[in-house]
């Protein structure tokens, strides 16, 4: 390697460290860029005239496709960006109670709305029962033999107890509405005790659907609307509406949030005739918008519900008396206070690397 042993190590050392320093600088520059790029994204609402306002929509997993479609329509017509958080409604309710970062909560079970309402976080006036759904028993379609089935028609519930059905995929019966509904139905049919040990619980109803699609479970119970999304499962049996538990999706805006008026406007849109069509096309039952009148709104001069007009997305005079918080106050505050230590750390690291 090196014939001269006295000066060489020093020369090598110097070269080595300069290369290292270059690499280090490059990496640090990249790191700094990411950090500052990140820091630039959320704030600066003042100069930009139409920085789209963001609404956080926490929604039941079963609403994924319908809401994604409706969200695109809504974003096109309004200066609003929708950020969706899909999951088990129970989980979402827990997240809202803990963190209160949602503007809208679209739950697959009214119970979860009650939990949020108990914490006084719900905009009670905006609450409405909007959609119905239905449970179905599904099994995976065998790609090699599409006719193969674990069940025989006409289907009877006790076929679920056949030994071929080793695992029955349900959404988690403790933490997901779809699982609670399915359990209620099986209990009514006096099959729960038999099947309990074979249940494969899913984190939300879509995880359950996926475990049936993949063949992990031989059969499962999901919503009709979930089965309609998948080409890889077949509906074996639709639970008659009068036989299963009543499945009602409740929608509501959250009260202690900076953009309640905009959230309500979005809610109006989701209850409009156009949105109903989209929901119905995906298999949901659009419930008649009767219930909200039963609950008297706090501000009585509110517009009647169900009446949708395009002006609602602007802040109308009657909404102006909502306790509207200034635009994003705490968020801006914390992010700027977060940036200070970053800047210190980065500056320190740079100074450190720049010294010889």
């Amino acid at each position, binding site marked *: *390697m*090196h014939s001269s042993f006295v000066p060489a*190590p020093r020369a*090598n*050392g110097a*070269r*080595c460290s300069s*290369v*290292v320093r270059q*690499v*280090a600088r490059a*990496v640090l520059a990249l*790191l700094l860029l*990411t*950090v500052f*790029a*990140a820091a630039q994204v959320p704030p600066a609402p003042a100069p930009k005239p139409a920085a789209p306002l963001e609404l*956080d929509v926490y929604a039941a997993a079963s609403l*994924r*496709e319908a809401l*994604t479609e409706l969200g695109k329509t809504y974003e096109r017509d309004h200066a609003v960006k929708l*950020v*969706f*958080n899909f*999951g088990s409604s129970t989980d979402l309710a827990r*997240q809202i*109670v*803990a*963190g*209160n*970062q949602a503007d809208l909560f679209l739950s697959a079970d009214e119970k979860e709305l009650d939990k949020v309402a108990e*914490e006084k976080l719900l905009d009670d006036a905006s609450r409405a029962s909007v959609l119905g759904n239905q449970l179905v028993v599904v099994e995976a379609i065998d790609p090699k033999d599409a006719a193969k089935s674990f069940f025989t028609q006409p289907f009877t519930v006790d076929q679920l107890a056949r030994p071929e059905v080793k695992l029955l995929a349900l959404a988690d019966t403790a933490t997901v509405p779809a699982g609670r509904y399915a359990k209620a139905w099986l209990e009514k049919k006096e099959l729960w005790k038999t099947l309990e040990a074979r249940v494969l619980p*899913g*984190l*939300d109803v*879509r*995880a359950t*659907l*996926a*475990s049936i*699609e*993949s063949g992990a479970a031989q059969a499962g119970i999901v919503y009709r609307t979930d089965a309609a999304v998948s080409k890889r499962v077949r509906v074996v049996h639709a639970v008659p509406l009068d036989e299963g538990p009543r499945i009602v999706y409740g929608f509501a805006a959250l009260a202690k949030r900076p953009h309640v008026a905009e959230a309500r406007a979005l809610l109006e849109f989701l209850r409009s005739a156009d949105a109903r069509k989209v929901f119905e096309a995906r298999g949901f039952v659009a419930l008649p918008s009767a219930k909200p009148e039963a609950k008297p709104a706090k501000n009585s001069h509110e517009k009647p519900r169900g009446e949708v007009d395009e002006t609602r997305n602007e802040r109308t005079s009657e909404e102006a008396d909502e306790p509207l918080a200034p635009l994003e*106050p*705490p*968020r801006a*505050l*914390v*992010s700027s206070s*977060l940036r200070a*230590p*970053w800047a*210190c*750390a*980065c500056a*320190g*690291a740079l100074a*450190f690397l720049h*010294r010889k």
Partner: protein
Amino acid sequence: MPAGDESTLEVLRLTLVVAASATALVALPALATGYLLARREFRGKSVVETVVALPLVLPPTAIGYLLLALFARRGPLGEETLGFDPGVLFTARGAVLASAVVAFPLVARTARVAFEGVDPRLERMAATLGWSRWRVLARLSLPLARRGLLAALVLGFARCLGEFGATVIVAGNIPGRTQTLALAIFRDIQLGDERGALLLVGLTVVLAFVCLALVERWSRPARCAGEEVA
């Protein structure tokens, strides 16, 4: 629903931003802790050592739960106690915080080893030449430990890239807000989107490879010179 290119890019961006922010947040305190543990003797040092190591040993879900309880609306650092919304839970800041807490012990411990690798006699010699404690630190200890410290930071960054357990509890799994690579993979698997998951796994492998290569490079000074010449 397969993840489009746009959402994959968004996930990648968010992952890098969260990991970089968490590393930056943790850098100074962790390096300082590493230095203290390497160079100072003080009462209760073993307690500090244990506390520093704790997040390394605890399951990330336990850390997540503790942070959740701490920042929940009625928790000791929550909205109702503070009087304003700290905006930590279920936001990107929550993801940063969770990653930072999990990465802290890794950075601190690696930094400690790096500082311990500096010959203390050199520091004492410098002190006899009239250098102040800070000057010794800035002009001697830090430069000599530099590679180890960089390795510590990259290791922390890498840990943040893969952070899942604490993040999913503190920040949820919200696309465009808190969904980093690890969380996006989980969601794709849940939804049965195997292609999407595979794409994201590929991305994480690339990222991990880069990080590990850097760590390797910086944690082995002796071979560096030879490699450069060859």
